[in-house]
C-alpha cells in the first residue's frame, strides 16, 4: 500500500510503486482535473504540485511521492494564488478548448508562489513546458500578470 496525501487528505492506494501519479489521480481517485496529453512530460497538461513544486504527473511514480503533499487543480481554489489565477483566467476569457488550462494554472501557481511579480522572461521560463494547442498564450501571459497585479502588456519585443 502506498500512502498519498492529496489535497490535504491521506489516501491509501494498492498500487505498484512505478504506477504513474496521473493515472492514480484519474482512474483510481476520480480526480479528473489533471489531464493526460502526451505521457512523456512534453505537454504539461498533467501538471500538479508536489510539496509546492510543479511536476508532471504522467512521469511521476506514486512510489516517489509517498507522503509528499500533492495538490491538484481541484484544490487550487483553496489558496489565494489559486483563486487569483482562476478569476484572472475568467476575466480575460483565456479558455478556448480548455483542455490544457488546469495544467497551465498549476504551472502559473507554482511560479507565483516563488515569484509574486514575474516579468515576461520569468513567465516564458515557467510556462514553456505547457502546450496550449489552441495557443491561448497571449491571454495566459496577461492573466498571470493580472493575477499578480501587474500591467498586462507584453514587453518582450518593444
Amino acid at each position, binding site marked *: 500500500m502506498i500512502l498519498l496525501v492529496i489535497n490535504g487528505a491521506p489516501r491509501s492506494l494498492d498500487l505498484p510503486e512505478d504506477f504513474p501519479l496521473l493515472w492514480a489521480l484519474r482512474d*483510481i481517485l476520480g480526480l479528473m*482535473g489533471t*489531464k493526460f496529453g*502526451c505521457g512523456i512530460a512534453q505537454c504539461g497538461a498533467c501538471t500538479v504540485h508536489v510539496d509546492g513544486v510543479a511536476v508532471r504527473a504522467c512521469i511521476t511514480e506514486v512510489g516517489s511521492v509517498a507522503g509528499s503533499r500533492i495538490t491538484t487543480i481541484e484544490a487550487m481554489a483553496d489558496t489565494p494564488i489559486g483563486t487569483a489565477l482562476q478569476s484572472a483566467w475568467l476575466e480575460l476569457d483565456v*479558455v478556448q478548448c480548455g483542455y490544457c488550462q488546469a495544467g497551465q494554472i498549476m504551472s502559473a501557481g507554482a511560479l507565483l508562489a516563488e515569484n509574486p511579480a514575474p516579468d515576461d522572461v520569468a513567465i516564458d521560463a515557467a510556462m514553456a513546458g*505547457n*502546450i496550449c*494547442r489552441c495557443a491561448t498564450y497571449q491571454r495566459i501571459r496577461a492573466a498571470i500578470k493580472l493575477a499578480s497585479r501587474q500591467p498586462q502588456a507584453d514587453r518582450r519585443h518593444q
Partner: protein
Amino acid sequence: MTTISRRLFLQTGAGATGALVVGFGWSDTAAANARPMLLGNYVSIGIDGTVIVRAPNPEIGQGVKTSLPMLIAEELDVDWDRVRVEMAPNDPTRFGQQDAGGSMSIHRNYTALRRVGAAARWMLVDAAARQLNASHGEFSTAHGRVHHSSGQSFDYGELAVAASLLRPPDPKSLVLKDPAKFSIIGTSRRGVDSARIVRGEPIFGIDMTIPDMAYAVYVKAPVFGARLLRCELAAARAERGIIDVFTLKGQGDRHGLQDGIAIIASSWWYAQTARAKLEPLWDTAIGVGHDSTLYRDKAHSLLAKPGAMLEEKGDVEAALAQAAQRLTADYEVPFLAHAPLEPQNCTARVKGDSVEIWAPTQTPEEGRQLVARTLGVAPDGVVVHMRRAGGGFGRRLENDYMAEAASIARHAGVPIKLVWSREDDFAHDFYRAASYHRLRAGLDKRGRVSAFAAHGVTFAHGSEVAQAAGIEGNGFESRVVPASRLEQSLIPTIVPTGYLRAPVSNGLAFVRECFWDELALAANMDPVAFRLAALSNVGGSGGSFDAARMRAVLEAVALRSNWARTRLAKGQGMGVACYFSHSGYFAEVARVRVDADGHWQVLNVWVAGDIGSQIVNPLAARAQVEGAVMDGIGSMHAEITVVNGTAIQTNFDGFPLLRMPEAPVVDVEFVMSTAAPTGLGEPALPPVLPAVANAIHAACGARVRQLPLTAARIQAARRG
C-alpha cells in the same frame, strides 16, 4: 396534461431551481419541417423565470456553446446573466446539422437561431396579449419581461405556462431586431463552461465515467492499413490489472474499425503497460514505397509534365511568352498531424442492439451512423452524447475511435472507456496532405501580373483525390490575372488524409502568397501596393471572391501595422499576405527576427479580417484569431515524415507545437462589411504562414519555399 404534452413539448419536473420548467414547441408536421423553429428544443422557461437555452453544435474550443445561444437570447430579449446554457442532445431531426466544421456554425445559424429567439418572444407576448385581451402592438419586451402600454408588466416566468400552450408563429411573420438595438450580439461574453474548466471539473470526453466501466487501449498496425496476421495474447493477459485481451477484425473502411488488439484493464495504465507484452505480426508489405522522399521524387517528375486542368482562363502560354519578365518557383508543404491536446477517446456501453456513446466529436451524427454500421445495429438504437472536446482542428470530424470503442465494449461485455495514447494519435491521424507545387508567372512592362500558371501535385486513394487533399483555386489569381491556369497531378498513397483547420488553404496560402511576394519584388513594388494594384484590376463583387473586401482588409492591416513606415532593428523584417477562405477575408502582417544562425521568432502579427456585418462575441472572436495565427506559426515548425507507410514522429518531442516563449503579440482588427456574418475558426490561419515567410525574406534575404521553415533551410537559402 395529456392533450398538452401531445401537442406541445412540455417538460415538467424539478430543474436546478426546483421550479416547473416549461418548454415551448409544437408537434404538427408543417411546423416541425421548419427546422429552426422547434422552440421546445431550444428554449425552456421556468415559472421562476429561469431561462434554459440549448447549444446545438459540438464545442471544440471555437466558442459556439456561447455564441449560438447568444443569438437566441438576443431576440428573446432576456438578460444574458439569466440564461443557463445546456448542450443539446444529438438529434438532427430537431436541431438540424449538428457539426463543427468549415467555420459554418455562425454562417448557418445566424438568422435561424435569431428566429428561434424571436418566436419564443412572440409566444410570450401572445400569452400576455390574450390575458389582457390586447393586441401585440401594445406590448414591448425587455430584460425578460413583457410590458403593456398601460404600464402593466409580466415576468417571462409568469407567462411561461400560458405561452407553452400557444401555437407558434409563422417564422416568416417574425420581425428580427434592428442590429443597432442589440444588447447581447456584438457584446463580449465569456465562455459558458470556463468557470468549470478552471476548477478542473470533469466535463471533457476523456473525463467520462460510467458504472462498472473498464479501461481500454486498442493496438493497431504500425503501417497504415496493414492487416493483423497473428498475435499471442497470453503474456499480456497475465499482466497486473488486465481483465481481457482480444483481437478485432477491421472492416475495410479507412474511416472505421481497423484490425487490432484490445486490452481491457482496471486502469488505463495497466492496459497501456500490457501492450509491451504483445508481439503482433502485421502484414506490412502494403507500406513499401510509401515514403516522403519517394513521394517528393515522384512529384518532381509529375511537375515536369502537364497535369489535369482544373481551371483555365485565357491563353497562359501566349501570355507568358509575351511577358516582360517570367518567374518560376517550386514550393512544398509536408504532411501534418492535428494533435488535439485531448487524445482520442470514447466511452461506450452496449446492451444488445442498444448502444450508448460519450465522445468528443465534431460530427456526432456521422459517429452514430458509423457505430450502427460497425456493429450492424439500427441507428435508432445508438445514442451519441456530445462531450466537450479538448480541441478538434478537424481530427474529430472522423469518428474511428467511436467505432473502436463500441466494438470493444460489445466484445468485452462491459462498458469501456477507450483512450488513445499520444503515440496512437500521431500514428493514426488523418493527416493534412503534403503537396508539391510549380508556379510560373509573367509580369508585363508595368509590373502587372499578366500570366499565372499553378501546378500542384497531391495524393489519391485509388482513382479519387484523397480526402481534403485537392488542389484548389481561391478565386484570387483567376480573378485578378488576365490569363491563369490551375493543374493537378496525383500520387497514389495509403496515408489517411483529412481536414486540418483551414483545409487546403493552410498549405496553398503559403505557396501562393509567398510567390506573390516574389512577384512584387520582381516588379520592384511594395508587396502591399502590388496586391492592392492587382485587386483594383477587378471591379466590385461577383463570383465568390470580392476584391473590394480584400482591398479593405489589406489597407486596414497596412495602417494598423504601420507598414513600410516602421524602423526595424537589424535582423528584423516585416512581411504581408492576404487570403480568402471559409468566406472570410484576412490580411496579415508579421514582424520577425532572424538570428545569425537562422533561428527565427515572430515578434508581432497584425490581423485585419472581414467576416461580414457582425461579430457575435468580440472577446471570443479575437481569441479565435489569436489562436489561429499562433496555430499557423506553430505549423511552420512541424512535419510528419512517412517512411514505408509509417509516420515516424510519435509525440510532441518530434512534432513541436508553439510554446509560450515563441508566442508573438497578436493584434486583431475586424473590418465590418455589409455581408452576412460568417465563421471565424479557420480563415485567420492561412495568411500568417506566408506573412511570416515573407517577413523572414525581408529580414535576411532567405526565400524558403519549403515547410517546415527550419534554420537549416534559411541558412541554405542565404548561401544559395
